[in-house]
């Protein structure tokens, strides 16, 4: 009895010998990731419309959109990313894919940022830039709308509709 009480903790030795070494030789061994791992995202600038749907669903605001003169910039900041992949689920153009990349350390913050820059189209009436050119192109592919209609900013579209409506009821201008 006494002997077994002393001896049973020693069973750990047999377990340890049987299991052997479990530490992996990272980064030299085989990859440690499973097939469903979600890492950093990658945005394909050729497919991206610049619609900004991803920035609306991104919980930590890692994806943001800003105007820079006549350009619209979609910025991906890995420092904030929580790797949830909501953007990839939402993207209407399938431009975002979730990669398995997880070794993201960088020596400067700027290295953690990625920009997708879109040229903006100007409104045919008021001349203000209002939407990414790529978005007009791709929306026209999907929806049967005329170029004339698509090239007008929402403000002017509204004004024009009001004007047309007014003219029908006899307004002078």
């Amino acid at each position, binding site marked *: 009895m006494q002997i077994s009480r002393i001896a049973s903790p020693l069973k*750990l030795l047999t*377990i340890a010998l049987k299991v052997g070494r*479990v530490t992996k030789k990272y980064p030299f061994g085989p990859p440690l990731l499973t097939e469903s791992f*979600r890492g950093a995202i990658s945005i394909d600038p050729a497919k991206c419309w610049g619609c900004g749907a991803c920035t609306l*669903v991104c919980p930590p605001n890692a994806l943001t959109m800003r105007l820079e003169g006549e350009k619209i910039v979609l910025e991906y900041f890995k420092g904030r990313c*929580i790797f949830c992949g909501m953007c990839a689920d939402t993207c209407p153009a399938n431009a975002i894919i979730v990669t398995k990349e997880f070794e993201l350390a960088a020596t400067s913050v700027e290295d953690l940022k990625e920009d997708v820059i879109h040229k903006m189209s100007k409104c045919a009436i008021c001349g203000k830039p209002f939407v990414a050119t790529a978005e007009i192109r791709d929306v026209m592919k999907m929806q049967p709308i005329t170029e004339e209609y698509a090239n007008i900013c929402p403000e002017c579209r509204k004004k024009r509709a009001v004007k047309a409506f007014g003219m029908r009821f006899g307004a002078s201008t």
Partner: protein
Amino acid sequence: MSMKDVVKEIEGKVVEFGGVVETITDTAVFVEIPKERVKEFAKWLYNAGAFLKTCAGVDERSINSRFAVYHIFGLDEKGIDVVLRISSLEGEALPSIASEVPAAEWCELEARDMLGLHILGHESKPRLVLPQDWPNAVYPLRKDVPYDYRPPSSVENFGKELPSEVGLPVGPYHPILHEPEYFELYVEGERVVDVFYRGFHVHRGIEKLAESPRFTYKTIPFLAERICGICGFVHSSCYVLTVERAAKIEVPERAQFIRSIVLEIERIHSHLLWLGVAAHILGYDAGFMHIWRIREPIMVLAELLTGSRKTYGINIVGGVRRDIDESKKKKALDVLRNVREEFKRFVEVFTSVPEIVKRATGTGVLPKDDARALSVVGPTARGSGLRRDVRKDYPYFAYRLASFKVPVYSEGDNLARLLVRVDEVFESISIVEQLLDALPRGSIAVESYEIPSFRKAVGAVEAPRGEDVHFIITGHGRPYRWRVRAPTYQNIPALKIMLRNTPLADAFLTIASIDPCFSCTDRAVVIRDVRSGFRRFASLFEGRRYANK
């Protein structure tokens, strides 16, 4: 007694006390009680076997120009929540029910701190949640305080409260452990005579943040998941459960199963983590290494099923985002079989090691009566002989369809809590296997849903540490009020009882034995000798140093 009879009885009582029954749902009864008689009603409920889950202060001035406090009771045996609402105009006093229901003290103090409610009997008590240098008349959970408000940090605010003796700046933010909290143990020689706790160092204002325009119903699950680093999925599950209850969304069965499966996997890894940490605290590092080795395949399995080792990010309102296919199912069953065998073999060794068994037996005792009075939850309650388990009492997701035992030990000491966790690992493995086998076909999320405003709901999910409660009042696009009560919140007050009159060497294990999760609610401990006033800081892992003296 059936559910209908229980509801009828409650209705009768409410009328007797001059109150109104607001709404009755499948899982909860919402009542309004005149504040003068709430004490009596709370006492009646408490004596009828209800546990206090939490209370939530709400600034309802934009709806009805009043402040309200919701006391959430749970009738465990009947599986029904009773939510008491009392309200007052700004500046009016509200009664406290802490004298009848001791567990209400913390949440009432929190309501006082965060909303500036005048709760009778709590006027002179020190702040619980807000830091000492927080300005006096700013109450962060009031709707007129912006969510990104930062008080000017000034030394002036410290004023007279600055202590005359300043310790070494080691605690409360301990460099090894990531969670800061502060215990002051008053010792007489080797015995602990009193305990002082100061927490909420990492209060991140998540409830307030969720009310900000930054967040919507869709993105809050990811925020909720970050309440806790170990049991994050519990919080996101509890949030979606509560929203789904409030909006009456029917979630596909397959999604319910996947949620239950992932919750159980989280429980397995959390319990294994805790057992490892307990071994480490007791100086049995070989055991610590082996338990964590056994745990590793579970982490990899979680990654396989969800895409991430932790903070899985698969919960959304109305379903889940990742499916479990046949090949994943097969791999999961393989992993679970191996883990069960390895853990079984290891537990035999673990429970025969004298340094574990002797130091855990008879230390940190929490008697059943105290456990009941403080409404403790989870393994802490089950180790003290209370059969409380949300999975059985208030079945949610797919737990109705799984058969499992709730391990209960009556000793109330550290060993009892340890054994509860060991047993639960086996039960959880069996639950996951059952659910994987019975995984129904179908979609994993609803296509669309609508969430009406100003509906109330209570949701509870059994976290590895105990019952996690969320209370939601829905609003436009995001909750009007979202109250989170993590399990540790309910268990910390019990530490005072566990620690009193125990040797100092056992204090470290006892504090760890409730499996505290302080970000949800540092493990640096200040030890002060009552006679000499000698004061020093220690980390939780230093316990063995005292033991070896």
